[in-house]
């Protein structure tokens, strides 16, 4: 889940992002990750477990994802998780995954649309000692390996990774299905969603959240504004078009 960027403010006291009042949406590439998982389940069987770290209000988003066809959901939720950078975030998620009895594939979105670090999937592979494929747009399972197409802008590579593996999926790589709203209703308030706290994961307070983060906000500064002319073209459509063409003219002669 990510906050809508325009609704996030900065708290000048704590020097942290205030996401509390922002409306959340499901992180777009995470929908592609879930669709990837559901298609693999349809092809090979098995179960799809959702895992997410966040406040209790994330539950309703997990219920939507259960409506899309996931089997169950784990919400890692504890006040001590707050303020985490990608180091304790990936650690906390890894502990949650380890607590699940078996896991062949961890499928993630390529990055969050708010911080865009893309650091959690590689971090998970490290904590879990799994193989890693990042930025995949096609994922298939063959025996004990996962075969994926990894996108690199206009280039790509075909990778074969031993399972268990962490795979991150790029946004737009498939068409995520719509939730079945009867199933969403069934999921609402059900025990399909379990909530695990820090103590359930055997995590100590100094390893998680803000305390477990290596990066620290030193200060918040105003970016130096770039001086722009801010010249508004006046008049009706025709005048504007003419003035715009004139403004572009010097660049035509380059």
């Amino acid at each position: 889940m990510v906050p809508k960027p325009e609704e996030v403010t900065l708290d000048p006291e704590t020097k942290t992002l205030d996401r509390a009042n922002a409306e959340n949406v499901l992180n777009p590439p995470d929908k592609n990750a879930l669709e990837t998982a559901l298609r693999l389940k349809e092809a090979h069987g098995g179960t799809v477990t959702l895992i997410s770290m966040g406040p209790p209000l994330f539950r309703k988003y997990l219920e939507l994802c259960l409506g899309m066809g996931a089997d169950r959901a784990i919400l890692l939720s504890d006040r001590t998780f707050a303020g985490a950078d990608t180091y304790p975030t990936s650690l906390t998620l890894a502990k949650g995954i380890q607590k699940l009895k078996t896991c062949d594939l961890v499928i993630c979105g390529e990055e969050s649309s708010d911080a865009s670090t893309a650091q959690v999937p590689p971090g998970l592979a490290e904590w879990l000692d799994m193989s890693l494929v990042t930025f995949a747009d096609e994922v298939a399972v063959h025996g004990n390996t996962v075969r994926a197409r990894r996108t690199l802008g206009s280039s790509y590579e075909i990778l074969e990774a031993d399972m268990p593996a962490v795979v991150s999926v790029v946004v737009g790589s498939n068409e995520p299905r719509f939730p079945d709203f009867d199933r969403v209703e069934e999921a609402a308030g059900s025990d399909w969603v379990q909530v695990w706290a820090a103590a359930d994961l055997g995590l100590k307070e100094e390893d998680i959240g803000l305390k477990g983060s290596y990066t620290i906000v030193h200060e918040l500064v105003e970016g130096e504004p770039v001086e722009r002319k801010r010249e508004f073209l006046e008049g009706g459509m025709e005048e504007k078009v003419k003035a715009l063409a004139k403004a572009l003219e010097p660049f035509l002669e380059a």
Partner: protein
Amino acid sequence: MNVPGELQADLYKGFWVYMEQEEGRLLPVGLELLGKGRELADEMGEVLTAVILGQDIAALGEEALRYGADEVLLADHPLLTGFNTDAYTKVMADIIEARKPNVLLMGATFNGRDLAGRLAVRLSTGLTAHVTRLEVDKESSLLLSAVPGFGGSILAVIKTEFGRPQMSTVSPGIFKPLEPDDVRRGKVERVDVRLRQSDIRCRVLEREVVPAEDIGSAERIIVAGMGTGGDMKLVDDLAAALHASTGVTRPLVDIGVAPREKQVGSTGVSLRSKLVVVLGASGASHFVAGLRDADTVIALNKDKEAPIFDESDVCVVGDIFEILPRLLEELEGKVMVV
């Protein structure tokens, strides 16, 4: 994991830049980081070291010296020919653990982000992503990495106190390379590479390298926002008329209209263009961060209050679907001959 207090930070010395190579050529972002690294390393009193992984890469070491490095570490091995996440992570982690650098900068490319994310956890240290400004804190001599925050032009300045090396990834186009100095000399050292086939759990079966279009260095570029409704036809037509490249804002990438390499902004590409024409983008702070180094910005938007106009030289309020077809007629006959 390491308990932060155990770290002896003063054991860590050296300012390192990881130089990504592709098919035997250094990527521009590494040269850009050497340029900035030169300035920061001098300020910190550190030696500037370029680290290059690959096969038969001796010439790349010389190139790194010309672009400002004091010394070069080469990890030359058949299993390092192209990027492999397991091999590259192991070799980089081995070199870092043996030599203990204070700072490590890497390009925020697909491979750079994959590698950096693994190294930060394996080495228990802090990593900041998509940094747009780097400086040295006068008091502590720590590296300060500025990352654009939400809502307006605020930057979060991030530091890593307990964790070494201090790591950051930087997008291509943020910093400028130095002019190459052909007489500059320095030490090029080959490091021992301990790597076996069994270290590799993820194998590359096939690789298709298509040189990516670098929109950051485009002279002229048309950038489409959500106000275009994802209709790239008009955008492409204007681009053709102006002999310009095209780019998009993040939401258009998210809905699949354009690939990630076309994304302008702090988490995409920073433009160094002479002319940027922005069509139907509201002006989110992440996006306008990518316009800072552009010479002239012309924006079209139907909302006269759109924040994009604060970041533009020429502001056109109106419906782009009405204005653009007329503009194309007007430009016809004026189009430059290449």
